Structures are given as structure tokens and as C-alpha cells.
């Protein structure tokens, strides 16, 4: 394999790799703004200068392919001066409003300024200012902070498949905006905020709610559809503030859709049912388990499980049925129109899948059949769902039956239920899910659940215990 030398370290290179990738592997950090591994290379920001032996000028590492025998210096005097020059240029018109900017703490411009810029400013002219356009419900724009890296323009064209952000005017007056000032249309708009290297594009949903450095980060997987995009839940004080995509080149690359990004909100909805209910009345867990036993003991029951449950939860329900509810049936439900994984497929050309639950493949792997195979339901039906599976799909099959709900529900969803046993949302539990392509992934607990809700396994264990105790007596 060809080798090149970066800051004295010899490292193997693959054909077509640029110097940023190679340097990263060698443990050498090259500062960038416009470069993004998921987008085309434009070499516009001029931050990633390196010195390459035998080349007269400084080269941009993003657009220079590593080659056999190349000797690269990333810390030489010309490089340091070049980067300082670029930093100075970028800050000429930047408002330097970090104290009130939401990006502070996770801002490339701020970080690189500390790393490569000067603490003093030689520019004393008036700064360039812009009038901002309304970017729609997801993104808030502050053009004054923009450094014209064009990541957003390229993201729209190359990833989201929509040409909606553009550069207009030129030179010092260049403006990065939407076509005709229209609001963003893409369903992937949140990514604009992720890739913006400054506070120019920020998430309306997140801004001014929490400083970036206070957030704790839990690496998990989105439950929004059967794609299984890797994401990070960012939270503090047991409250989720936002979700951002994590890189997984096999599944979601660097991106996620807005539906998945904002999906977590229902888990913090003030109308989420957090205490056991019998009809309209709030009851204690002791009574709730008793009610469950009374309604189900010794009967054959129709169990409907959401394909948004984890493998562990689904297997527990299966084991419980085998041990305590012999002869009961179990069927999965999830998305209207997608009863089995053969019905699943890409919902758009980017990431979204038709199945709006995360574990359809997993449920099938455990041998659970779709609700479309359910002929007649028993008088009592147990519906267990994680929070994402479409209740209507289940309810229209079991109209007029006595319903027991387990899992995550909102107030407006439980009017037809006789008994509700509140459970854990995907942010509050650990488990395994299998995506549409058969890739097994783990979801991780980010939030400590309220002590009035119980995991499916715990509820079933309590019910089993009760049955066992009474049998002994």
C-alpha cells in the first residue's frame, strides 16, 4: 500500500483519500469549515492549509489526494500563518456574539479561532450585516454569523435532494439564503443546524433552552422508522433537549430526518399517562396488578404487541404467555399499510422507511405474526406498545373488546381502555432492535423514568408473582 508522511509520521493511504482523512488516522487534526465528509469538496474556506513538499503554494488538505511518498507538514510556519490569515478574514464580519449565540461551546468557528486565530483584531471598519429571511419552523437563520462555507447549499442539493438554499450576490455582499426567500421545504432541515459550523443556522426547537456544554450525551438509535438511524440523545437534569444524528456510514451516514429528530417530544408530553389507570381513575400499582390478574387469569387472551418494542420485551411477552396465559395469541402491529416487512420499503430517496416502527424485522424474527392474521379477538385484549406503534391499527381490529394497555400512552389515546399500565419510552430503557436490513442495534437509556411507570418485564413479573402466590394459598 502507498505511504505518505504527515508531520513525520509515516502512514498508509488508500487511493482517493484526501489529506484530512489520512491526517485524522495519523492522529493529526486539521481544522476545517467547508469540508464535510458527507458532502462534495469545494475547498472554499481555505482553513485546511498544509504544506506539501515539492508544491510551491500551500495546499488545501480537503482537495489534495494523498499519494505515495508525499511529505506533508501541518504545523510549519507558512501553514500557521495561512490559517491565522483565514481566521482573521472569517472574523472580519462575524459579530463575535458568542455569549448570546446558541452555537457557543460546539462552534467550529469558536474552536478554530481559539486554536489558530489571534486574540486581537486589526480590522476597524464597519461590519457587514444582513436582513434575515424566515426559514420555516425548524431553522432560525442569523446571516450575520455566516462564514459562507456553503455546507448548507451542498447538503440540500446532494443529500436532501432539494435545491432550496443558494448563494446570491457576490464578493463581499454574498448572501446565503433560500430561493426567493421561501421557507425550507425539506423534511431533513434539522441537519442544516448540525452541519452549520457557526451559529448561523440553529434549531428553533433547541435554541436558548440549554447551553451546549451542559448537555450529557447518550448514544442510541432512533425509533422513528425501520431505518434505525444512529443518534445521540442530549439531555440534562433528566430532561431531553435535543437529538442529533451519529455517524454510521452503513445506515444513516451523517444525517437524520426531522420526524426522527423531534420524535422524542412525546416522551416528555405533559399529557403522557404516568400512573396506572382504571377507566378514568388513577390507581396504585398494587390494585393495577390485581386488576390485570382478575381480567386475564386463566383465560385465553389476544395479545397485541407494537413492533416498536425491543426484542427483549417481545420475548418476555412470549415467555409470559407460554408460562401463564397458555393458548393466548400474539400479533404485532405498527404502521397502517405496512403489516409485514415485505410491505416495508423506502418512503423517500433519502432515509425514511414506510414502517414507522423500529423493530418490525425483530418481531418477525421472533415468529410473531402480523395483526392482519388475527381472525377474531378474545373478549379481553392486551395492547402493549412502546409509544410509536399506531394504536388505530390495533384498535380497529378489536372494537368493543375490553382493552388493557401497557406501555406509553397519551391521555387522548386511552379513552377506550379499561386498564392502563404505564411503561417505559425508548429513551428510558435499554434493548435490542433490528432494522429493515437485519442490522441489530442497541438502544440506550438516557433518562431515568418516573417511579410511577414500570417496564413490561416488571409488570409481567408482578402479575406472574401474584398468580403464583394465590395459587399457593
Amino acid at each position, binding site marked *: 500500500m502507498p505511504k505518505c508522511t504527515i508531520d513525520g509520521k509515516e502512514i498508509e493511504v488508500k487511493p482517493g483519500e484526501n489529506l484530512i482523512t489520512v491526517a485524522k488516522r495519523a492522529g493529526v487534526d486539521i481544522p476545517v469549515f467547508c469540508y464535510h465528509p458527507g458532502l462534495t*469538496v*469545494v*475547498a*472554499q*474556506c*481555505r*482553513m485546511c*492549509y498544509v504544506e506539501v513538499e515539492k508544491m510551491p*503554494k*500551500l495546499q488545501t488538505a480537503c*482537495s489534495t489526494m494523498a499519494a505515495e511518498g508525499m511529505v506533508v507538514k501541518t504545523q510549519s510556519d507558512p501553514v500557521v*500563518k*495561512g490559517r491565522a*490569515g*483565514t481566521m*482573521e*478574514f*472569517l472574523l*472580519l*464580519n462575524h459579530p463575535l456574539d458568542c455569549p448570546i449565540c446558541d452555537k457557543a461551546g460546539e462552534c467550529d468557528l469558536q474552536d478554530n479561532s481559539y486554536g489558530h486565530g489571534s486574540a486581537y483584531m*486589526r*480590522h476597524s*471598519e464597519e461590519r457587514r450585516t444582513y436582513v434575515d429571511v424566515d426559514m420555516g419552523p425548524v431553522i432560525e437563520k442569523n446571516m450575520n454569523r455566516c*462564514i*459562507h462555507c*456553503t455546507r448548507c447549499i451542498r447538503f440540500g442539493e446532494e443529500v436532501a435532494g432539494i435545491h432550496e438554499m443558494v*448563494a446570491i*450576490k*457576490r*464578493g*463581499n*455582499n*454574498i448572501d446565503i439564503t433560500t430561493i426567493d426567500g421561501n421557507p425550507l421545504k425539506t423534511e431533513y432541515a434539522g441537519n442544516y443546524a448540525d452541519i452549520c459550523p457557526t451559529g448561523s443556522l440553529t434549531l428553533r426547537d433547541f435554541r436558548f433552552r440549554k447551553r451546549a456544554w451542559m448537555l450529557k450525551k447518550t448514544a442510541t438509535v432512533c425509533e422513528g422508522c425501520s431505518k434505525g438511524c444512529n443518534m445521540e440523545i442530549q439531555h440534562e437534569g433528566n430532561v431531553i433537549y435535543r437529538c442529533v444524528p451519529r455517524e454510521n456510514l452503513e445506515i444513516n451516514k451523517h444525517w437524520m430526518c426531522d420526524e426522527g429528530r423531534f420524535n422524542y417530544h412525546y416522551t416528555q408530553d405533559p399529557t403522557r399517562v404516568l400512573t396506572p389507570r382504571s377507566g378514568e381513575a388513577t390507581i396504585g400499582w398494587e390494585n393495577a396488578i390485581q386488576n390485570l390478574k382478575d381480567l386475564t387469569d386463566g383465560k385465553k387472551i389476544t395479545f397485541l404487541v407494537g413492533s416498536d418494542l425491543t426484542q427483549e420485551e417481545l420475548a418476555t411477552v412470549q415467555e409470559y404467555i407460554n408460562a401463564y396465559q397458555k393458548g393466548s395469541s400474539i400479533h404485532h402491529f405498527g404502521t397502517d399499510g405496512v403489516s409485514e416487512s415485505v410491505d416495508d420499503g423506502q418512503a423517500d430517496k433519502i432515509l425514511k422507511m414506510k414502517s414507522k416502527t423500529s423493530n418490525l424485522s425483530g418481531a418477525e424474527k421472533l415468529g410473531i405474526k402480523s395483526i392482519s392474521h388475527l381472525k377474531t379477538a378474545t373478549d379481553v385484549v392486551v395492547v402493549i406498545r412502546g409509544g410509536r406503534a399506531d394504536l388505530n391499527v390495533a384498535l380497529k381490529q378489536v372494537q368493543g373488546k375490553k382493552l388493557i394497555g401497557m406501555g406509553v400512552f397519551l391521555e387522548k389515546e386511552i379513552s377506550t381502555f379499561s386498564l392502563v399500565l404505564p411503561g417505559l419510552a425508548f429513551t428510558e430503557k435499554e434493548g435490542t432492535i433490528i432494522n429493515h436490513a437485519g442490522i441489530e442495534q442497541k438502544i440506550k437509556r438516557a433518562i431515568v423514568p418516573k417511579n410511577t411507570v414500570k417496564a413490561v418485564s416488571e409488570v409481567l413479573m408482578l402479575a406472574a408473582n401474584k398468580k403464583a402466590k394465590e395459587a399457593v394459598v
Partner: protein
Amino acid sequence: MSQTTLFEQHFWKESNRNLDYYLQSMNGYQAAQKVLKEMTPDQVIDEVKKGNLRGRGGAGFPMGMKWSFIPKNSEKPKYLVCNADESEPGTCKDRQIIRYTPHLLIEGLIIGSFAIGCKHAYVYIRGEYVREANLLNAAIDEAYAKGYLGKNIFGSGYDLDITVHRGAGAYICGEETGLLNSLEGKRGEPRVKPPFPAVSGAFGCPTAVNNVESIANVPHLIRMGGDTFAQLGKVDKSGGTRLISLSGHVKKPGVFEIQAGSMTLRQIIENLGGGIINDKKLKAVIPGGSSSPILTADEIDVVYDVEPLMKVGTMMGSAAIMVIHEDTDLVKLLLRITKFYAHESCGQCTPCREGCHWMESILHKIVHHEAKPSDLDLLNDVAQNIGGKTLCALGDAAAGPVISFLKKFKPEFEAYIKGQNKYA
């Protein structure tokens, strides 16, 4: 020395632009016929290489070499694009060619297209050249009517179409990759190189981009043979003649033709330009378009060609000489030049977008007596941070004049700061 000229004698008479004149008085389309019927593309390229024909647009790159970079076995279509954007301030030679000898350009395009295997050539003409675009289109129509363009040219089985595409008036679209973006209907912004246009140019296909004068020289070169063409040049590596746009404080400004490397800058100014206007003293010369570093009056005994000018730290560029006499305020001149580059910066890369405007602001302060002494070092440093650091050559074009003016005429800037400038 009497000069052999290829173009000049045909200028300034409107009827010369007609096909009849071209056929009768300029052996029109004979070179193209010879090439299409008797030569292979490789022979054409070799002949051009032999003729030492170098690009007339600014960089002076050997044209045969450029054509030989076009991959022969590529399955993609290949394009020849003629750069008629002529946007470097001071340059007006391509306009002459299009106005008076448009068929020379068309014949050159036929030969060049044949050499690189192109079936559709484009002429990207600057938006301001409305009349010239019309003239060129009229000439192309004449050529189509005679069967010199279109299908099966001269019965050789070779097809070629030419499209004239008008720009919208941006300096940066004279940069070859900016031009290609503009031709494709995109924003006129230069592209990252590599890939070079020879590999991935117009519409992602192999493309040669050549200046009007370069292409118009090709029929001459083929007619007289590469060796004879090379001998017209009086310095190594430069064949043929050069059209020079002489402007500024000379008695007789205009477009002149000399054999490449046959005269010094001083001879050009004195013999062709008739000396300095009002017999003033010469102060400085900008030798190759506004982006070339300035020369002082003592530095002009230099042979006017690519390499000799490079040796004295400037460049021949598009061969646009601007002559400046003693009463000229160079600080204001530099402000004007810098303002041009700040205005024409496309804005995609950082040093040029921010730096050119900053240089303009500093110069503005100097001219308006608001600057501090330290601003001169600052101005120089900003220019150094732009020069050699941008994505395309516009950054260098903007930084070059600033650095050279400051180096050679610093006292004038200092006088401004002290409030003692004599031109106020």
C-alpha cells in the same frame, strides 16, 4: 525591424469581416480543408506544438500541450470552448479579432475541434460584447451556409457545430472553470482543480478552453507550418505574433501586433505608442493587464514576452499595457484597481471575499486621509494573506498590484498618510 503581422493589416475595415474577403484575401478555410482532408488529429497537435503557440489569455500555457491532455480514448463527448470573455482591464485585442476577422476564429475552432475530437464547440463571449456576439453569429451563419460548419464539412465526414454563449458581465467568468460553470448555467464560480478541464470540464466532459487570439492563430500556423510560425517568435518557447492592447498615457493608444519577443517594453511605448502624451515623464507601466505587478520607469528595458517579464517579477498576462505618466496619483489608481477586484470577487473563498474588500477599505481610508502609518504594513500583510492562498487566480490578481505598488511606490502612500500628497 520591420514586423511580420498576421492580423493587424485586416483590422479597421468593416467589409473585411465578410466571408468573401476572408476567402479571397486571407486564404480562408484552406487550412481547415487541409487539416480535415490530409491530417490526423495527432499531426495537428504536433504541428501546434512545433509552432510554440502559447495561450494568449494570460497564463501563456503551450497550446499544443493543452490539447494533448484531452484523453483520446474517453467515451464522453469532448468540448472546445473559446474564451472570449476578455475581461482583464486594459485588454481589447479579442474584440478586434471578432470584429474584423471572425472567420479566422471560426476556422481555428474547426481545426482545434478536429484536433481534440470535439463535435460541438462553444464561444463564451462577454456580455458587454453585444455587437461582437451579433457579428460572430452572422459569420457563423455564413459558414454554415457554405457548409464550413454543420455535417460532413468539406466532404471529410467530420461534423461540427458552434454555439455562441453570451456571459452576463462577470470578470470571474474569464477564469476557465468559472467560465465552464457559467456556460453550464451555474453560478460563475471557479472550480477546485484538479480535476482540470482536460479531464472534467464542460458538462463533466474533457474540455479544452482557449483564448480567442490563441485559436485565431491556429489557421495561420497550419498554413505556414509550425516551424515557420515558431520562427516568427524572437525568444525561446514563444512562436507567432502577439496582439498588444496599449492604453493609458501614450500618444497613440490601440491594438498593435508584434512578433513575439521582438521588442522591449520601452520600444513598444515609444515606437508603437508614439511616446508619452504631452511629452510628460513616464512614471510606471502595468505590463499585462491590471492584475500584473507594476513596473517603474527604470524597469521597462525588458523584452516584452512571457519569460523575460517573469524574470523581473511581473507577467505578460493578456498583453494589455497600461502606461502611466508622472502626474498620475498611484494611490488612487491602486484604490480603483482594488475596487474592481473587490467588486468582481465571486465570494466563494474566504481570503478573496473578505480580503479584497478589506484592502479596498484600507485604501479608501488612505485616500481620505483617515489612515494610520501602521495601515501600510497592514495592507501589505492582508495582500500577502490573499496572494497564493485563494481557490483561483483572482486572489493573486488582486494581491499582486497592492504588493507591487507598496513595494515600488511606498513614499506616495506615506505622503498621503502624512497629508502631504502632491495630487490632492
